[in-house]
């Protein structure tokens, strides 16, 4: 059947996709994992990024190299030991283990991106806060982090998109209860044939939030995607 220009639009496919329990469940799973991963990555990534942005020490240079090296590693080199560990601990099919696994890609990314945002602040800002009687922690939480709010938002959006798009780790670590939508969507393809209409409807539902957020996060896009190699 060739595609034709004249067709009757219908929402039937969307109704069918949303009527499938596994798809909706997968969507919720993806959301839980993506938000969980991003919040943890932000907690650790912001403070690690801040300390990397300080001029003192060689740490920054080596950490940058390490982040690039970690990006080189194929996912399978992370997945094999994590899979063995989680299956030994009976922790497969568990949100926590999925989030830990996802953090191997999201945390270095958030750290490096935050480092860039902190670096763009003038160093006088922290000095002034210290002179006015802030401790270093107060300076960090009351002055510096609020000043890079938009950077934090960029990190949050990117981290969420990365975790949302993740497929390989999900394929290995997730199971019946925690399967995210990126893995679940394959069930529309079966040996009996593929329901292309439903598949595209499902695909659109998966991609929609990503497209929406991409528009908001354009600013940090390049810096994020090339993390570790651009100063």
């Amino acid at each position, binding site marked *: 059947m060739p595609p034709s220009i004249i067709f009757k639009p219908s929402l039937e496919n969307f109704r069918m996709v949303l009527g499938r329990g596994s798809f909706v469940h997968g969507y919720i799973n993806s959301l839980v994992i993506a938000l969980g991963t991003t919040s943890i990555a932000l907690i650790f990534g912001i403070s690690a990024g801040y300390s990397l942005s300080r001029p003192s020490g060689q740490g920054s240079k080596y950490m940058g190299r*390490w982040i690039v090296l970690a990006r*080189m590693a194929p996912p399978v080199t992370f997945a094999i030991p994590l899979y063995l560990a989680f299956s030994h601990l009976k922790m497969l099919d568990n949100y926590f283990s999925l989030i830990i696994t996802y953090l191997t890609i999201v945390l270095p990314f958030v750290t490096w991106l935050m480092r860039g945002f902190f670096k763009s602040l003038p160093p006088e800002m922290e000095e002034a806060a210290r002179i006015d009687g802030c*401790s270093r922690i107060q300076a960090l939480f009351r002055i510096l982090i609020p000043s890079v709010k938009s950077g934090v938002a960029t990190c949050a959006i990117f981290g969420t998109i990365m975790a*949302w798009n993740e497929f*390989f780790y999900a394929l290995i670590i997730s199971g019946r209860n925690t399967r995210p939508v990126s893995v679940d969507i*394959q069930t529309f393809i079966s040996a009996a044939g593929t329901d292309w209409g439903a598949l595209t409807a499902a695909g659109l539902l998966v991609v929609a939030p990503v497209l929406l957020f991409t528009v908001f996060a354009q600013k940090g896009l390049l810096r994020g995607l090339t993390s570790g*190699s651009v100063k």
Partner: protein
Amino acid sequence: MPKQVKEEVTASRGEGSKHLQHINQSIRDDVSRFGIKAILFSDSERLYKMLVVIPFGVLFALTALPLLATFVTSLFGWYLGDPMGPKFIGFSNYSQMFSDPTFWNSIGKTAYQVIVTVSGQMVLGMSFALLLSRKFRGVGLLRSLYIIPMMITPVIVGLLWRMLFNPSGGAINYFLSLVGIHGPNWLGDTRTAMPAIILTDLWFSTPFVGVILLAGILSIPTEIFEAARVDGASASKIFWNITLPLLRPMIFLSLLFRLMDAMKRFDSIYVMTGGGPGNSTETLDLHIYFATFENLQVGYSAAMGCVLLVLIFGVSIVILRKMENE
């Protein structure tokens, strides 16, 4: 401060003990005052250090430990179905791998996929960047629309192209039939499967190259181009002698990331062909996946994973060196 105090103390030594006592008292006051402050300060300092050290530790542990564990695993003969468990065999996995024709097949497929995809993307990305660097109506919108494909979920991209390549009812063969060409069974034929896989990534990742090169072109001061034009340089001369040399750092940068990601590309190949038909699209990353999770040869797979990491590392380090020399 302490020096001054010491001087005062020495100076006062000859005078009355009352005076000495007074100074001693003031020093003690000072110490206790500064002591409390110092404790408070060091406390916050300690907390601060924890804030800095813990995230580092987490980051390092999350990335370094698995890599180390993979290397250690690669030294074991470890079949998951074997009740005997892992057995230390040294580097035997590596020697077994190098005499395995399916391993070499996957190396060949990876090289084919990576070289064709990345070189195509560099050329196409450069053309798009040049196009989008011009000023015309709606260029701002085009620049922002252009980056959208690369953020789409890779699995969905694979599924989308699988649909387009579908021999019965897929859009590509339909359009080919309009011009009288009977399209092949793209993903079902060993000769066309890899080109189809490559085409998909050309669509998906070329914007990445384009965006980086575009940023590079836009950062070149326009006076340079104007001066060249005034001096009567042709458009192709400007490109080869000005744009290209100035873009070198950006070219290396996009090349680095494209090579890294193309070598470990998994998602879209997995959903499009699953390495098939036969093993005509089974790149090393897919080969390792099947060896691990279908054949359950964990130790052997870990060894192949280490080889893939070393390959990616080797290629990247060459480019990183070049970038640092620039």
